[in-house]
């Protein structure tokens, strides 16, 4: 029997959307495999009513709701997750791909002696292996877990789970663990969230710009577009290295890997390092003045023209369009 455990990540008391989507994808996997049980582990105080109706399937969610677990603490969190995994005799542990899971999962891999696979999609767990791009996205490598117990970090996916939400979820409080003083290092003092746009790693729509934007001012067009669409602004490495945009927005090999449903590449030529970051994007729209730019080889739709002329027109048309909706 498969016993799946899903790590549900909360930040400031709100369970992350991609954790919920991971839960739903694992439920789907469990249904496919049969003879599987799904449970969750939620660490830190959180509003659990928000989960009603959003989560699919049946299962138990173990909730460690101590106040001191509100902010991420590596050792506390690792301890709670490892305890639950062992106590419930789980076989597989699933994470959404986040900064926190990348910090936590390798530690748990050693502690639980479990194979750790990152960059997975759910069907990878189905076939017991994972394929993901390596070497700047020019090769696809397949990895097989050798341990009986496994940890999967699921990539965010442009495809939403087809699972219908509204399952029967029970919450069970986890007894507080005893901790030694050593456990409270490192301490997260506080977190400060940026106002406004969603983060590129979580946005459904991304409007990204590169060298062709010509400078920091050029990005105001993209900000307007992102605002209209409820999306986020992304940037190529050039745009970040030139200081036009912060590193948090960089997409590609030395930046973030993203999986929006819709990706606009504006004034981005499409270096292989950039393409490595958008392999899982849904629909890609490229706007570039060079019709032979490599970005058009990976785009679904292309518009040739100077971004400084095309984008204002696109903004106007879009405003008109949205009025009619």
């Amino acid at each position, binding site marked *: 029997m498969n016993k799946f455990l899903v790590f549900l990540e909360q930040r400031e008391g709100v369970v*992350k959307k991609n954790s919920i989507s991971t839960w739903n994808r694992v439920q789907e996997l469990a249904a496919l495999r049969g003879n599987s049980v799904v449970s969750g582990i939620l660490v830190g105080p959180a509003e659990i009513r928000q989960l009603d109706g959003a989560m699919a399937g049946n299962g138990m969610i173990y909730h460690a709701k101590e106040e001191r677990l509100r902010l*991420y603490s*590596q050792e506390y969190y690792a301890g709670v997750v490892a305890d639950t995994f062992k106590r419930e005799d789980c076989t597989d542990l699933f994470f959404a791909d986040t*900064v*926190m899971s*990348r*910090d936590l999962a*390798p*530690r748990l*891999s*050693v502690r639980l002696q479990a194979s*750790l*696979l*990152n960059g997975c999609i759910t069907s990878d767990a189905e076939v017991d292996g994972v394929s993901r791009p*390596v*070497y700047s*996205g*020019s*090769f*696809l*490598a*397949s*990895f*097989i877990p*050798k341990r009986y117990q496994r940890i999967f970090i699921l990539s965010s996916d442009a495809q939403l789970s087809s699972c219908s939400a509204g399952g029967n979820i029970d919450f069970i409080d986890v007894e507080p663990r005893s901790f030694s003083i050593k456990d409270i*290092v*490192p*301490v*997260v*003092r*506080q*977190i*400060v*969230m*940026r106002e406004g746009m969603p*983060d590129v790693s*979580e946005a459904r729509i991304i409007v990204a710009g590169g060298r062709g934007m010509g400078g920091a001012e050029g990005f105001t067009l993209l900000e307007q577009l992102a605002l209209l*669409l409820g999306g986020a602004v992304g940037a190529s490495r050039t745009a970040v290295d030139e200081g036009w945009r912060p*590193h*948090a927005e*960089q997409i590609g090999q*030395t930046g973030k890997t993203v999986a929006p449903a*819709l990706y606009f590449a504006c004034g981005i030529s499409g270096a292989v390092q950039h393409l490595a970051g958008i392999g899982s994007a*849904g*629909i*890609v729209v*490229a706007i570039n003045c060079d019709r032979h730019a490599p970005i058009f080889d*990976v*785009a*679904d*739709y*292309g*518009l040739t023209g100077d971004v400084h002329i*095309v984008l204002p*027109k*696109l903004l106007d*048309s*879009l405003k008109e*369009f949205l009025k009619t*909706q």
Partner: protein
Amino acid sequence: MNIAVCVCQVPDTASLIGYVDGAIDYSRVNEVMNPYDEYALEEAVRLKERFGGCVITVFSAASDAAKEVLRKALALGADRAVRVSCSAEVSDPFQTALVLSRAITDFYSPALPDLVFCGKQATDFQSAQVPSMLAEMLGMASVSGITSMNPSLDSLRINREIEGGIEYIDVTCPALLSTEKGLNQPRKTSIRGVMEARKKTVGTVQVSLHEAPYVVMNALEPLERKKTCSFVPDEDDLIRILSQKHNLL
């Protein structure tokens, strides 16, 4: 203060890796120090320059070719370099972390270094697993992907970028920190640095490895991601397609 820095070699991101007769052709690949490790080493060197009394030792678990990258690390300001030699082949992040942890434990025995720096991931396979695994094996606290660091009297004040914000973290030594782009601007090697590096020796630590890997790579093939691009005549057309055909707007 003892600072350990772990470095590895990766193909230069600018070099094209070929594929000939079903196998990867590395012949035209230029190997360089993993870019994220450059931030790690730079941060260690800056600590030493600011506070003095620091000894920086660089470790690399790669093959013989690692000597090149260790030499470079010495030229950039490391004091000692250690090549980790291992009887068995090291093939996954778990084994890499294991041999590094054994080398570091041996080298500093019976103590541990005060700080360990690693790049947050290697740019070739991008597993981003070794730093946290190594910290767990060494029994150290760790913070992955740091973007700024300020030493205060009794702790290190660290920033880490999270989705949509910044985490402010305090950590005390001993700790392992893995470094993200944006932390600093790594220096280039100077002629003087290269000359001084010649006087330093690259040592070797022999470690055992009997543990099997946790993960095995069983296939590697070229990735073709070409799509057929439909060029649209104007903006209105694009909006129409995205809204009607794909229901995205």
